[in-house]
């Protein structure tokens, strides 16, 4: 199987999968809203690794994967800016960043 040398597409995809699952676990178990943002960033990085690995090994004549990962980076930057602004705004109002306490939409 491809798990022995040389390093190929499977290795990069497995690295991306491991990073994605760590981010997923972080989003599931953390209580702090900033830690949730960190987990989302880890998952977006895993997706970027997959996109660029597919670009190199599957379609080396094009740059579509790299262009898509640029769009992912742009959306991630916008998301973390808005997410941190929301966290700071909520913290000023409630003096907490724990997502368990953000429950004033439920009655």
């Amino acid at each position: 199987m491809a798990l022995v040398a040389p390093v190929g597409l499977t290795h990069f995809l497995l690295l991306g999968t491991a990073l994605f699952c760590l981010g997923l676990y972080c989003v599931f178990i953390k209580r702090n809203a900033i830690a949730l943002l960190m987990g989302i960033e880890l998952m977006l990085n895993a997706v970027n690794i997959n996109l660029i690995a597919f670009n190199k090994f599957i379609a080396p004549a094009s740059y579509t994967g790299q262009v898509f990962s640029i769009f992912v980076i742009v959306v991630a930057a916008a998301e973390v800016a808005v997410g941190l602004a929301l966290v700071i705004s909520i913290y000023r109002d409630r003096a907490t960043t724990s997502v368990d306490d953000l429950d004033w939409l439920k009655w």
Partner: protein
Amino acid sequence: MVNEWIYAGAFYGLAALTLLSAAGVVFLKDIVHSALLLAASFIGVAGIYVLLNADFLAAVQVLIYGGAVAILIAFGVMLTRRPHMKETNANNRWVVWGAFTAAFTFAICGWAIAFTQFKPIDATPAQVTAIDGIATQLLGDFVVPFEAAALLLTVALIGAIILAKGAKEA
């Protein structure tokens, strides 16, 4: 042959840096340490990009993720800090179910990846350098998403400023 060994060594070293730093982000109890390790993980991903012949994206990764995003998160941590930093990154009650779900996802995806034969759709390597190819595609086929991304960034940053500053005095 020697080049392959160097490539494999670089891959495993960078993968270990990325995954161990990401594990530190998830499992450490102090969120300041988590934020710093997140930057280390981003730098490891930039090294992976270099191995994948994506030099321009490696530079972008270091600038935007390793610089801007990690610093932004560190600022967020500092602006919302508590008197006791030891339990700032606490877990909630879903630890067992979260671990089960993440392990299940990894098992399914890993199984699918390990037993799939990926075939290249065109064997000819690219003739131009990466920056030329990316620029041609960004300002050609993808020019509308490119402009939409520029608009999205502007709107998101203005919205973030208004959210953090407060709308009354803005």
